[in-house]
């Protein structure tokens, strides 16, 4: 094969600009199809998980069902992972993406977010043998933090806790196991699901320290950039679900406690 032919083949393989990604479905398209496709990540219990019948269940699927019922269409849940969430939206495989979609200004350059579904509260997950009481205690060369690759806490850690050693693992199950095995000293991350997650290590004396100094972030529905018809409808549906207490009720059912920070509901968006 000559070099030029190889280069052509390479460009074709990578599709660099060669194919325009599919367009997302508008609200009208979804109503016409009679189906809302929502991406959820079942590796993030209790947000989403596989139940004993091997079906996807959890906070997000139940909320997605409430949204689909409001729209009067069938709900189809699509399993997504953290890295491929956005390609799923872009390639028109899902209409709405969940999977703990924390809003950040960087991410909002790529997809559009609705108003918040729930708050995300952060803290230090460690064992009672460790003395950590605040975030600043983690900024030391003797501290190894075990985090999940691709989560929102990581840029913060790199910027504000630069002395700490970082080990990035693939998912929260691996993170929990590594902490239980003493591979690191702590993890700074969301603590909403901790009560649910750490039950499987009864022998470990866990300690969870809330860190209000970090602030609160919010999770939303994600839709394709510019899909305003769907985003605006979702905002109104969310307002109704919040004011009716539906979101909070589903939250408490799965997270085993009330939301640490209530979402300030406003009729405007």
């Amino acid at each position, binding site marked *: 094969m000559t070099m030029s032919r190889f280069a052509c083949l390479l460009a074709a393989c990578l599709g660099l600009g060669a194919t325009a990604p599919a367009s997302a479905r508008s609200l009208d398209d979804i109503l016409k199809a009679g189906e809302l496709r929502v991406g959820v990540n079942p590796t993030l219990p209790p947000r989403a998980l596989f139940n004993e019948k091997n079906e996807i269940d959890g906070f997000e699927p139940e909320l997605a069902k409430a949204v689909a019922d409001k729209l009067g269409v069938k709900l189809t849940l699509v399993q997504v992972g953290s890295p491929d969430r956005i390609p799923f939206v872009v390639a028109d495989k899902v209409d709405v993406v969940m999977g703990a979609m924390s809003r950040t200004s960087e991410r909002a350059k790529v997809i559009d977010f609705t108003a918040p579904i729930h708050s995300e509260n952060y803290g230090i997950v460690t064992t009672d043998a460790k003395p950590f009481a605040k975030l600043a205690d983690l900024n030391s060369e003797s501290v190894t933090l075990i985090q999940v*690759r691709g989560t929102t806490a990581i840029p913060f850690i790199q910027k504000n806790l630069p002395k700490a050693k970082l080990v990035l693992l693939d998912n929260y199950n691996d993170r929990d196991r590594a902490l239980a095995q003493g591979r690191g000293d702590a993890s700074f991350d969301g603590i909403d699901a901790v009560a649910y997650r750490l039950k499987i290590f009864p022998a470990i004396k866990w300690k969870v320290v809330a860190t209000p100094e970090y602030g609160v972030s919010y999770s939303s529905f994600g839709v*394709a950039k510019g899909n305003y018809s769907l985003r605006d409808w979702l905002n109104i549906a969310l307002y109704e679900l919040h004011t009716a207490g539906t979101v909070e009720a589903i939250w408490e059912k799965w997270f085993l406690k009330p939301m640490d920070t209530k979402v300030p509901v406003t009729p405007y968006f």
Partner: protein
Amino acid sequence: MAYTLQYGQVTPYLGYLAGGAWLALQLAAIAFVIGWAIGLVCASVLEYGPRPLRWSVKAYVVFFLNTPLLVQIFFLYFALPDWGIVLGSYQAVLLGMAINAGAYLTEIQRAGFRSIRKAEVEAAETLGFSRVQIICYVVLPHIGKVLFPPLSNQYIILTMTTSIAAIFGVEELTGRTYNINAQTFRSFEIFSIAALYYIALTLVASVALYAVGRYFFRIKGRVF
């Protein structure tokens, strides 16, 4: 509402990705060398060793050829601590890749030993070659020529395999790609650049291996 490709958003990370590519190259090279040494010893045992040793080597090869590398590394990283052996991310991945490659390279090198015709060795003995001379002038050049292409292929495969390391906390090319993707959400752009880095890694290796094969073993292969 179509997605617009924005490569400008990810260009600041090119250097960071190059660091990951360098780590992937290191992992592949070290795992290959260790795996090659394991393979050479095990292949010799299979061909010339005593029976109990042969069986234990066979068990090792069968086990590692028939289980996924991911499972093997998972065992080294997450199961061994229950027996009090705590390996770091890099050590567990390197050890897993080396042992796994060792099983493959055992079979490859065993085939190399088997490819030597008895008549050639006998001819050398007739000519009065010493054992060392037979190995240097008859066996090694022959084995080298036969083994070089499959060994090269194995090295290229190993380079791709390094991406598994990301799952266990090693910040190589795939791991860093995931990190940037999580921050920017520019998945198409960042993964296509990562693909180019991998192609560069394997192309450079292919050209180098082609040169080595041509110079040392007079193998007339093609890179493209």
